[in-house]
């Protein structure tokens, strides 16, 4: 896993549009910052602070990095790992999501990837294989307080479902403290804005449909405040005997959620909230739309 640490500040000010684009890589995704301003120095300063913050969160919570706090927690062989305030808050947040979803949203399910490989040619795993992993799943087994967290041996936690959205929201707070100019921060499709554009105009965000056929048109979303996040991945599935297995797994059974939409995009006051709502909806399977309607949020579902 190599992450290029390059910030590409694109000072294009075509047509007096007064936007400055900054592109960088983080969390295995192309990321960008857009600021509605012509102040290059401000943009440079913003870019360096936001990138530093995003990379810090990535470094700390990535499951892939051997030197991350996440990896340290996961490999401590049943011993407590000291944590800071930020990690405590994240664990606390994950716990609330777990309760709100009646156990469907569980940051200990990542281990199931050892059984499921989602690409069309892979096999559906044996039930025994899944069962052997299920005993290492279950948030209720995680013990934590403000100072330390303890995982039973072989269990793992994975912040992948919240870290990116959390990074967006943290970066937005940072941007707000640096400038009053409207800023959009996009980390691989999960994004948020600090304010509407000047003259109270909404940001026009186009989200390309992720299928290969490109038959469906792009969604154009007018974003005035808050953020949006997308859950789901229509390329990750496997087909066995005519049955399609999507990559969204039920934490309780270890099997894919049936009739889940391919992807869901939700708009909410914060990116984190949007991301969790999208994920919770995905976990509802065929009831996804009903769930989103009950929550009265703005959403787009691709099935």
């Amino acid at each position, binding site marked *: 896993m190599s992450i290029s640490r390059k910030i590409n500040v694109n000072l294009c000010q075509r047509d007096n549009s007064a936007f400055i684009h900054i592109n960088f890589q983080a969390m295995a995704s192309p990321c960008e910052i857009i600021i509605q301003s012509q102040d290059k120095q401000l943009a440079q300063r913003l870019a360096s602070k936001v990138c530093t913050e995003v990379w810090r969160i990535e470094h700390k919570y990535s499951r892939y990095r051997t030197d991350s706090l996440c990896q340290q927690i996961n490999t401590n062989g049943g011993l407590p790992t000291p944590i800071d305030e930020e990690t405590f808050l994240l664990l606390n947040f994950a716990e*609330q999501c777990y309760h*709100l979803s009646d156990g469907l949203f569980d940051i200990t399910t990542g281990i199931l990837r050892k059984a499921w490989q989602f690409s069309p040619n892979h096999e559906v795993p044996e039930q025994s294989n899944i069962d052997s992993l299920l005993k290492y799943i279950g948030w209720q087994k995680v013990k934590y307080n403000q100072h330390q967290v303890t995982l039973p041996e072989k269990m793992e936690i994975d912040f992948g479902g919240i870290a990116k959205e959390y990074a967006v929201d943290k970066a937005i707070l940072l941007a707000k403290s640096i400038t009053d100019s409207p800023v959009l921060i996009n980390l691989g499709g999960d994004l948020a804005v600090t304010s509407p554009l000047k003259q109270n105009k909404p940001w026009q965000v186009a989200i390309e449909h992720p299928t290969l056929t490109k038959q469906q048109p792009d969604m154009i979303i007018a974003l005035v405040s808050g953020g949006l996040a997308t859950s789901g991945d229509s390329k990750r599935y496997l087909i066995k005997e005519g049955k399609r297995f999507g990559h969204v797994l039920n934490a309780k059974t270890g099997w894919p*959620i049936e009739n889940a939409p391919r992807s869901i995009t939700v708009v909410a006051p914060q990116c984190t909230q949007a991301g969790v709502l999208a994920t919770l909806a995905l976990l509802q399977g065929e009831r996804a739309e009903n769930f989103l309607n009950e929550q009265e949020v703005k959403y787009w579902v691709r099935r």
Partner: protein
Amino acid sequence: MVLGKNKENIKAALSIATSTLLGIAIPTESNAQQSSVTDDWDIESAFLFYSEAERVSAIEGIISANKTFDNDEVLNLKFTIDALTGASANGAVAQPYAQTFTRPSGQGQYVISGEDTPLDDTFKDTRVQLNGQWTQAIAQDYILSSGAHFSKEYDYLSLGINSNLAVDFDRKNTTLSAGFSYFHDTFSPEGGIPVAFASMLIGDSNDPDWDEAFAKTRLTSSDTKTTTDLMLGLTQVINRRMLVQMNYSYSMVDGYLTDPFKIISVINEQGIAQDYIYEKRPTTRVKQSTFFQSMYHFEQNILDLSYRYMWDDWDITSHTIDSRLRIPVHLFSSNESYIQPHLRFYKQSAALFYQPYLLEQNESLNIDYASADYRIGQMVTLTLGVKYGMFLEKGNELSFRLEYYQQTPENAGFESIGVLNDLNIYPAVKAIIAQVSYSF
């Protein structure tokens, strides 16, 4: 796999959880609502002053409020109030000597000095107008907009409805629209509706027989007209910088289209007025127009250019060219501001029945309609203006507009007779338009 019974509260619970995670203020129901109310209403207001040299002055104020709802429905409410005072041409031609006319109410006379264009200075009116417009998507790429109009002035009531359907094609690059509007207007002029071609009664309004004699020149107290407009439109995005629109409009006006305040001078062979008769226009008018507009975004500036060709069954044709160039500038602060010069050119031909005056010997001829209203005569008008707008805090915009408007009526080939040769019977009208707008 159904979430627990408190599922309705998941969003609220997540909101609190997220706020705790990020260490930001937990939104409460009340301040969330407050902010949505203040954020959602976009208010625009404008105040306009219009003043013609020696003629009418008007002030007009508008407040327009837009609210966008959750599903992108847009409600627009607009309130307009205007007040008009001053003098307006009554249709009679200037004479070498003073002329006396009766006020439209029948109560009293006014005298116009020799060589002056006869102006009736009794105009004084206040108008209140309300508009509501609701716009929403009724299906993917189908947008329906419907509205209602109400306006009331002292002697005039207008009620209207309109509806327009727009359909987007090709990634919203092409939009076709079709719409209609219908207005029903009731005119109750002071002094009633005059009998067409009746002579204006001139004399002593305190005479005991005056009221009876004046009443004979009156038909009814009020009359109505209806206006039905149909419009087809095509909007096309040409490229990233250019957008064009083409419209075709068909408009049918039916009912009382005459101006009850307008008269025509009946002159003898020396050009001396012998009589003033009330004008008469047809009771229908069918107008059609084609309209073409383009918006072009240069590196910085934006050019808005439009052309309209209108023709009707009164034989009026007109050409209108309107152009605005918006130039961004940085004058007083780092905030963006702009200067926008405006140039409008308008030329119309005269209605078939337009007559600057009638000849005495022809008056007994069978003329069906006649009007000396210069506004349906041959005319060229020019508007030159400039607008300066600046953006304030939070995107609020303050702008000022100053324009000069000149109407130059032309002789559409009428022979000048006798004393009229030495008089200006096609006087130009010059006006200043000043406007302040503020949006927040």
